[in-house]
């Protein structure tokens, strides 16, 4: 049951990439990013009101933890630029590859308060396979 749920989440991500990209084609890269974030803000505002999670800020995280929205805007702008040229499948595949590379980087240097995990070589074959798969899709 929950696996179907997982498929749906994945489907939603693909729809999101495509819908946001198309909105950018109709308007502009920045206007669409702005609209997407405003609507998402209203949605999450509703969520915080509906499901208040009473938690005090135990760790007092540094200010940049509150500013990830800057990265969010960058992601949507990049998404909107690439979607038009590459289509959904390839955009999604490359984003995934980027995520894996970044996780590897964060883990092996213990960045962002994450525990340092020695990784590396044993993950190279998997990453290379992903690159080959993406090239195969791009050529077809």
């Amino acid at each position, binding site marked *: 049951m929950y696996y179907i749920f997982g*498929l749906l989440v994945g489907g939603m991500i693909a729809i999101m990439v*495509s819908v946001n990209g198309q909105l950018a084609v109709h*308007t*502009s890269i920045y206007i669409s990013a702005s609209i997407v974030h405003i609507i998402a803000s209203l949605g999450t505002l509703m969520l915080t009101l509906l499901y208040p999670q009473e938690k005090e800020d135990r760790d007092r995280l540094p200010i940049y933890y509150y500013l990830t929205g800057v990265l969010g805007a960058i992601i949507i702008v*990049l998404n909107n630029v690439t979607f038009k040229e*590459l289509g959904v499948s*390839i955009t*999604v595949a*490359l984003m995934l590859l980027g995520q894996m590379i970044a996780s590897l980087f964060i883990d092996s240097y213990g960045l962002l308060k994450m525990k340092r995990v020695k990784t590396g070589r044993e993950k190279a074959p998997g990453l290379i396979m992903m690159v080959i798969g993406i090239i195969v899709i791009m050529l077809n």
Partner: protein
Amino acid sequence: MIIVYGLLALIAGVVITFSSTLNAQLGKSIGTYKAALYHNSVGALLATIMAIFTLRDLESGFKSLEQVPLYLYSGGLVTVAVVISTIRLVPKIPIIYTTLSVFIGQFLVGFIIDWYMGIKFSIGRMVGFLIIFLGLALNIYIEVQKQSNS
């Protein structure tokens, strides 16, 4: 040119990981929904400022807002749905299946949308998908093995 766009998509993936790692930690501290609210409202502010700075697009952009099909505005709501679903999903099934089922869903729907927009589906694309899937599964398997050992 396609390499430049490919690189940009890759960078987007890198940024996604940094953003979601920070956001997950903030979520643990102040609650997931509140963290998502901070994330989206700061993003909204920045994107709006950028939109205003690129005023030339803005005029024509706003003119076309009325002609845009309504469903194209759903991206922000889908984002919210993804946030809720992920929170509900992640504790329920092992992370390897979460990642893989989300991945399969992305590609199935991605292929359908691409096909709908005129990019033909082919055996070659399916083969590419399978190779990526195996590479991803292999690395997640290694990850899980390592975590259960430590």
